[in-house]
């Protein structure tokens, strides 16, 4: 029990550091892909330290208490998600929350972003807020299908307590439903990867913080300390959504192969988990960020509701077919 409480203290803070680390790596790799040198690895940490020093301006017409509390809520809720996610080891709050809870907790940071944007009474921010809400509506559909179909795969292959994350990250999902199941799951994994840039607001879907169009969008009025909290929330959210994808689709552990016992096994699993998270983030957000340009908001809705939805429904049908045979 003490171990669990200790972990509950360490994991969120570690989440922040890992998030900043990934942000740094992401910026370096993106720069290298564009032939640039790219910032030093600790640049995100420097950005946060600089933002903390700056003045924290609250606009006159803004609803003060809401404007300043939303960054706080965003960061707290994102760090809370990490407690429920299996970071290689079994989740810290193992029996106290499940997959649907994580899915809903992922809504809160974007909701805090939107409310913060609307509360800042600037036209840029309210346009950014509406766009973020429309984006949330569009990427939640394929995300829900992906999550439910993995749970259905486990349910139909006879596992109990299907929605609890330790069971999901414990079983090897790929071989469960034969060839059609495998194909369906691959399609759904693709859709999940396609959702991640939308969830994080990376380039093809950064319609809500579009610098060129709406001058910083939701963050137009945020500065100093509040902006630092949003910056950290975005960093931690990348880790959270990527480790959810890893938990669902890549639940393999390393400690078995190397035969490590005792304290080394969880450490090795944790590191391997970080590697997998890096791989997912690199493929889904860094490469896509460098390659594509920004989409118009109505295109975002049709892009998310046309192709990934049909694909993941197809995947779900394949899985259902697979389990029947």
């Amino acid at each position, binding site marked *: 029990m003490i171990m669990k409480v200790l972990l509950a203290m360490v994991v969120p803070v570690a989440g922040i550091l890992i998030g900043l680390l990934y942000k740094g790596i992401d910026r370096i790799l993106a720069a290298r892909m564009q032939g*640039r040198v790219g910032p030093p690895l600790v640049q995100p940490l420097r950005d946060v330290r600089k933002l903390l020093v700056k003045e924290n301006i609250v606009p006159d017409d803004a609803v003060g208490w809401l404007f300043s509390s939303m960054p706080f809520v965003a960061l707290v809720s994102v760090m809370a998600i990490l407690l429920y996610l299996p970071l290689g080891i079994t989740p810290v709050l193992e029996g106290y929350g499940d997959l649907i809870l994580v899915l809903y907790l992922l809504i809160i940071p974007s909701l805090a972003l939107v409310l913060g944007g609307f509360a800042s009474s600037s036209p840029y921010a309210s346009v950014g807020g509406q766009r973020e809400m429309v984006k949330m509506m569009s990427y939640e559909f394929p995300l829900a299908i992906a999550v439910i179909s993995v749970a259905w795969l486990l349910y139909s292959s006879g596992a109990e307590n299907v929605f609890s994350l330790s069971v999901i990250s414990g079983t090897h999902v790929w071989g469960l439903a034969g060839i059609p199941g495998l194909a369906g799951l691959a399609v759904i994994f693709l859709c999940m990867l396609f959702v991640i840039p939308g969830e994080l607001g990376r380039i093809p879907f950064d319609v809500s913080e579009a610098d060129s169009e709406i001058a910083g969008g939701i963050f137009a009025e945020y500065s100093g300390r509040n902006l630092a909290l949003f910056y950290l929330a975005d960093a931690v959210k990348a880790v959270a959504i990527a480790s959810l994808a890893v938990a669902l689709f890549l639940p393999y552990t390393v400690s078995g192969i190397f035969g490590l016992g005792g304290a080394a096994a969880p450490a090795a699993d944790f590191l391997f988990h970080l590697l997998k998270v890096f791989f997912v983030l690199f493929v889904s957000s860094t490469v896509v960020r460098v390659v594509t340009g920004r989409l118009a908001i109505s295109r975002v809705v049709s892009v998310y509701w046309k192709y990934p939805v049909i694909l993941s429904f197809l995947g779900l049908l394949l899985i259902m077919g697979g389990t029947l045979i």
Partner: protein
Amino acid sequence: MEDAKKLKRLVKSVWVFNWFNSCGFTEILPVVGSRWDMERFGMIPVASPRHADCLIIAGYQTEKSIRRAQRIYRQMPKPAVVIGLGSCSMSGGMYWDSYNTIKRLSDYIPVDLYIPGCPPRPEAILKGIMSIFREVEDHA
């Protein structure tokens, strides 16, 4: 925390807000580009003065646009740095004799650094910014 220590932190990651009229932007682009890459010093262009630490005012300013530039400067969270880019900001440049050009930028906004040139080459811009960094380093 006095200004010097704040500036030391600020220098490590300068977020730049460009207020450009004419040739200024064409010169900022290569600085952001892959050859001169200002991001290796932690500098990224941002869209809103609320995020900005460094306001680069490029090109000549008219009676109307200087009022907006002043309001943007006031809306930037302090401590902040202002850089006048090109000879137009120093002395009105080649538009010096027109009726509405602002002759000296520092009459309206406290300018920390002027970078001469019409337009200044990217190396000149980077050299200017480096001089600010060095000055902050020695000062602290």
